[in-house]
Structures are given as C-alpha cells and as structure tokens.
C-alpha cells in the first residue's frame, strides 16, 4: 500500500523528457518533487506560468508570482508568463502533454467527478472542467476508496460530473489502473507493493479487467 508520496512517486514515472505537465492541487502537486533527474519537464500553472519553479526561499516571496493553488512559487530559466486566455488556449489546443488531477469518483468509461458534493458548499470548478475537457492525457491521483470505505472507481459517477470520458489512468494507494477506451472499463496494470489482486478487486466497484500477470509497482 502506498502513502500519498508513493502515489506521487509512481505518477512521476509517467513523465517523459520534454513533457509539459499541469499538476492539480493535493497529491498531484507532490509529483513535482519526484521528477526523474535525467529528464526535463516543464510545469504549467493555469493562472499563467510555464516553467514553474519550487517555493521561494523565506523572504523571497513575490505576491505577483503564484501558482494555481495561490501558493507563492518561483520561475526558472526559460519560464514565461501569459494571460488566462492563452493559458487555457494552450490546454485546449493539446499543447500540455499530461494533466494530473485529484478526483472524488472516476467511472469505468473515464468520466470524472471532482468539483461538487450536493448539499455541501459549492466552491466552484475553477479550471478543472477546462482541463478535463481539453487535456489530451489525464492521470488521476486519488485514494481507491472514500472515507466510508466505498470504492471511488465506479460503474458510473454518482456525484455531479466534471467531464466525460477523459481519464486515461488512475494511480491509487493500491494500484495503477488504465481506463480502456470505448467504454472498455478499468484494467489493472500494477499492484502496490504488498497489495493482492483480490484486495484491488474488492475495492473496485466498476468493471475491472485483470490480466493473468499483474506486476508489482516498482517505486524507486
């Protein structure tokens, strides 16, 4: 079983040299800490920054340089600033190679729900709907089950949808799961260290294809 850092580490293995990547708030943000040393990845922050650097040193915070989570960040050599129209323009045009997001629920057809719980205060979708509707490759980072122990990988979302048929892969504390195209359902790709296929099966409410051999993740 992985902790949130393990999930972030596993997702970092999906990164390729030259990728432009948008990381959502929460576990996705942690992915930045585990980018393999031998590749160069450019982080896009949808409020208008390409080439997001680490948090500033204490005292160097600049109110004019923040990320989409409103945290103070820094630039790197080769960074660029732009306006929100261009930012979502490049997302819609498929220029961002990978988007990593959290989710409340993912359906076996790739639908995602991550913005609203009926009855609770609605804070808004921010850029989530734009990202899921437009990104060409979306990986979801989340827990396999919710606090009540119910699966978050479902036959269909029960919460209000953020976007349709968009999630390509899910990394949880238990497994790496592919969302097969054309409604093919979930497919188990890797088990977390020490987690059995049976455990993952039980925690997955949606249709799950399990190949004969499911390797254990390699987390460096």
């Amino acid at each position, binding site marked *: 079983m992985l902790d949130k850092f393990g999930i972030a580490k596993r997702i970092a293995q999906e990164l390729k040299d030259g990728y432009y990547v948008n990381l959502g708030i929460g576990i996705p943000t942690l992915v930045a800490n585990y980018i393999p040393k031998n590749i160069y990845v450019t982080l896009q922050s949808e409020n208008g920054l390409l080439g997001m650097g680490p948090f500033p040193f204490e005292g160097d915070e600049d109110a004019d340089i923040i990320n989409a989570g409103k945290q103070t960040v820094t630039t790197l050599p080769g960074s660029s600033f732009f306006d929100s129209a261009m930012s979502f323009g490049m997302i*819609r045009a498929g220029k961002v190679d990978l988007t990593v997001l959290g989710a409340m629920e993912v359906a076996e057809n790739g639908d995602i729900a991550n913005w609203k719980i009926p009855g609770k205060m*609605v804070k808004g979708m921010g850029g989530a709907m734009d990202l899921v509707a*437009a990104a060409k490759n979306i990986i979801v980072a989340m827990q396999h089950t919710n606090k009540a122990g119910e699966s978050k990988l479902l036959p269909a979302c029960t919460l209000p949808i953020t976007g*349709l048929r968009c999630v390509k892969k899910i990394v949880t504390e238990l497994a790496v799961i592919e969302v097969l195209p054309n409604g093919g359902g979930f497919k188990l790709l890797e088990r977390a260290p020490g987690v059995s296929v049976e455990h993952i099966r039980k925690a997955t409410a949606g249709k799950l294809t399990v190949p004969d051999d499911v390797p254990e993740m390699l987390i460096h």
Partner: protein
Amino acid sequence: MSNKVYQTADDALFDIRDGAVIMLGGFGLCGIPENAISALLKKGTKNLTCISNNAGVDDFGIGLLLKTRQVKKMISSYVGENDEFERQLLSGELEVELIPQGTLATRCLASGYGLPAVFLPAGVGTEVADGKETRVFGDKTYLLEYAFDADYALVKAWKGDKYGNLIFRGTARNFNPMMAMAGKITIAEVEHLVEPGELDPNEIHTPGIYVHRIFQGNGYEKRIEQRTVRPRT
C-alpha cells in the same frame, strides 16, 4: 490628447452606478484592482454584478464588497475562501453563477476581439451545459458560450502610460488583459504611471486603445493568500 489620466480612484470611477455589470481582474488576491475596490466601497454602489474569477477573502478584495452587501451577483469560477460569501449564498441574498475558468477567460477574450460567441469544450455533459446549445466538430462536442457584455472593467497593471498602454507583472497578469479588452469602459490602475515613450512599444501587453481611464494607485497591499516557502539551507 483627450485626457485618460485621473488623479484618484474616486475620480476614475465617478460614473459607476447601482446595478452596473463590472469585470474585476485578478486571480485570487493576485493582480486585483485594490484601489478601485476601495473606491467602490467608499462610493457604496449597490446591486453590482461582478465578473471575476474569484470573490476575494473575508477581509480583502471583493470580499470587502460582499461584507457591505454591494454585490447582487457573482460570475466566477471559484469562490471558496470566504465565509461571508457562503452565508449570503446559502441565505439566498447573493446570486452566483459558476463557470469554468477557461470559459470565463475566453468569454472575456471574445468580447475584446469582437467575437459574439465561441465554442468551448469545458462543461460538456455537466450541469454547466444545462440549457446551452451544443455542437459537434470532428469527434468532440462543444458548448456555445457568449461574449460578456460588461459596463466596466476594473483592471490592475504594473506599469502604464498616459495613453493607457499597460504592462502586467508575473502571474498578476491573469485575467487583466482580457478584461481590459472587454469592458465598455475600462479603468486601469497601475503601480507606476509613466509618460508616453517610457514603455517599450514591443513589450506592451494591453495597447492603450482598450483603456479609457487610468490612474496611479497607491498603498498596494498585494496580500499573499498562501505564503509557501522553503527553508534556506
């Protein structure tokens, strides 16, 4: 030249009336028109419809106008950081229209570029699509989203000259350039108001043609919402 320069925020906002539709630049508290918000607060203009990505926090930004009940409706993408906002929303005092962030930005761009409407994919299949026209291009479905029609745009820039040319700084740019283009009357406040010729024509983000009034702001607080740092080692 017909003078675009106003001495104070109060002067520049002189004609904003109750019920106006106002765009306000900024993302979170970054790049918000602090002086213009203070002037609205002082003026007490009521029943405002505010188009702004966020609604400030309880004691800063648009949150200040919520506290004084000057806002009738917010059109935003994310409004989370504000208790008073939540109270008014739940009590029905405040109307809120939530729209995706990129849709918000692009509807502003559409206004500034004379595009009556644009096709956007965000929200297809969600409740955001309710009542909206859809259309398929290729294998993808889009929503028809209309350009905004705002009476005023209140934007904040880093530098500006007396002809209204603007340069933004860092991620404080965000929605400001599009809103500057989109307002029927655009009022820009700047940290540094300079003479024409002091800004390099090649580096201007918003040409002065889009800006009707400009003033030098003062006392910028530039509050940081999430101060995150790493230790010096």
